[in-house]
């Protein structure tokens, strides 16, 4: 990155901010990972060190957007492996910020389901490895909702006894996704007229919502504050764990297929270690940790087959086979249409 036009001072200042933001720079660790809090085993650093002898430093990000902000501000320096959802992996790759995977160093890629090697945003896992995958649908109290909800319209235009007892995800892609699927459109729709139709539907739906909630919707089901919520399948499982009347359903109009991935930064100074880390995670036992503890499906055949049968009985969505999962539409990077989504979400949130 070369400074020009007398903006040297500003760039330097921005770099200072970026450095202070990207904790983990100038560290002695052999490898710096950024992941969502609680998305890996707490003792990952110890077990990784025991397996490889390498010092691992884990930093957390709360959202994809946060880590993207840090990476863009700092030019990607300071991180070796980053966990991001697939559309963001796609963006990072398009920006030339990702290191191609060295497959000879990651033999455990063989553990992945064949479906996980043919994902449209990265066929053949050139620059990303899927870590978890799943659907987004309706999570509900079967003892409080009459009948079985089976449509996004059950959420967007709820029956009278559900009004004020529903919540929706507020993150751009999933909020818009519910409206787009409800209208019968693609979750990656870029036609502004169709985006506006979804927006109008979501503004109407807002009037019947208890709240927007990305983090505690399942506890609102458990407490009885809400009866029907917009949820990621894995998070619905946290509710099911506390109340067996809670159930998850993918509406008949479909769901997005979301995938959280691991990517290696091109500016990483520890690329060999980064490949070792990815290989370590793909080990059946380590990858099974994610399925057992965060209750997300993992695209690792060996890991999924090692799970106790009771897990699938308690959380039926864990049993969804990969061939069914990949029928849903992958969330893709929207390119310039992202602006239309952001604007639509602002309009929905500002609407009274």
């Amino acid at each position, binding site marked *: 990155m070369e400074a020009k036009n007398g903006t040297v001072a500003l760039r330097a200042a921005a770099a200072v901010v970026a450095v202070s933001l990207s904790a983990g720079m100038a560290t002695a660790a052999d490898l710096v990972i950024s992941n969502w809090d609680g998305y890996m085993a707490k003792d990952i650093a110890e077990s990784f060190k025991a397996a490889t002898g390498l010092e691992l430093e884990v930093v957390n990000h709360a959202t994809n*957007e946060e880590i993207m902000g840090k990476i863009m501000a700092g030019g990607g320096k300071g991180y070796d492996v980053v966990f991001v959802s697939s559309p963001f992996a796609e963006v990072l790759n398009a920006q030339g910020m990702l290191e191609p995977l060295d497959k000879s160093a990651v033999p455990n890629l063989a553990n992945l389901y064949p479906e996980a090697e043919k994902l449209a945003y990265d066929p053949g896992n050139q620059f990303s490895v899927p870590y978890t995958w799943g659907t987004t649908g309706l999570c509900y109290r079967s003892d409080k909702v009459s009948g079985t909800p089976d449509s996004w319209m059950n959420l967007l235009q709820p029956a009278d006894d559900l009004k004020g007892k529903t919540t929706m995800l507020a993150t751009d892609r999933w909020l818009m996704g519910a409206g787009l699927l409800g209208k019968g459109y693609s979750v990656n729709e870029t036609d502004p007229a169709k985006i506006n139709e979804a927006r109008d539907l979501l503004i109407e739906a807002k009037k019947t919502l*208890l709240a927007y909630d990305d983090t505690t919707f399942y506890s609102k089901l458990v407490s*009885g504050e809400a009866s029907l919520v917009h949820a990621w399948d894995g998070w619905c499982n946290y509710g099911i764990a506390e109340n067996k009347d809670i159930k998850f359903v993918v509406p008949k109009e479909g769901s997005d297929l979301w995938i959280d991935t691991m990517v290696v930064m091109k500016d990483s100074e520890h690329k060999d270690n980064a490949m070792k880390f990815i290989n370590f995670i793909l080990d059946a036992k380590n990858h099974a940790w994610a399925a057992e503890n965060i209750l997300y499906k993992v695209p690792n055949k060996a890991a999924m087959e090692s799970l106790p049968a009771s897990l699938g009985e308690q959380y039926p969505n864990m049993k969804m086979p990969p061939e069914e999962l990949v029928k849903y539409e992958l969330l893709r990077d929207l390119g310039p249409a992202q602006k239309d989504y952001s*604007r639509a979400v602002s309009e929905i949130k*500002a609407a009274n």
Partner: protein
Amino acid sequence: MSFNAARPNLLAAPGVAWLVTFMVVPCLLVLSYAFFQRGVWGGIEYTFTLENFARVADPLYARIFLNSARIALTTTAIAILIAYPAAYAIARAPRTRQPILLFFAVLPFWSNYLIRTYAWIVLLNREGLINNLLRSMGYTGEPLSLLYTEAAVITGLVYNYLPFVILAIYSTLSRLNPELMEASRDLGAGPVRTFLRVTLPLSLPGVAAGGVFVFVLSIGNFVTPALLGGGRFQMVGNLVYDQFLTANDWPFGAALGAALIVTMIVLLFVQARATARASGESREAQA
């Protein structure tokens, strides 16, 4: 320059250095972002533009601004109406008891803002303490929807900033010369007239100081609307937060922040001028 003359400057140096390093510089840095373009995938492209400021005036965002101002104004009015009688009562209490009463007024500040806000969620939610209490008293209807409403947001803001207003009003009331009130009564005014014509006008600087404080803190607040409004009520603070942390549009977030800071500075300036004028008048009145 003698050592004595230099000393005040010397004493202020650590405070000034702190403010400049950790407030002025970061603020200017962030404000400077407002004049650049957003990179395609977030980040900042160093090309000069005024477009971010034009976007602030977009009806969509202007409406959020006005809506925030309305919520902040309602909060301020309610806070003053609650705080004034409380401050008056404290100022009229025996001198020895005033510190205890003030201590209770500011007691909530001893716990964390977030915890106090979560306490309101525990109180107000559909399965919360208030609804459970109603139920135990024989109420059988649908639970009341108290949380995730504009009223909940305003309640949370009033609750959190009320002590500021009590303190500000108390400080002017406690400094009023009691002889003025006595003179008013000697001249034949009843207690109501004395209050309306003497006490109230003289305490207005405190009301203004407390009021501006609450307004400024409320209009920029983003935690309370997020938690007590359930994300259904967007205030300008939330908009700024979203620009920095989710939309990754730092330049626009900076422009919004600049608009907010300018609003606050104008209000504080007006309030300072009004206070200066009022205290000048009261000094004349007391002279």
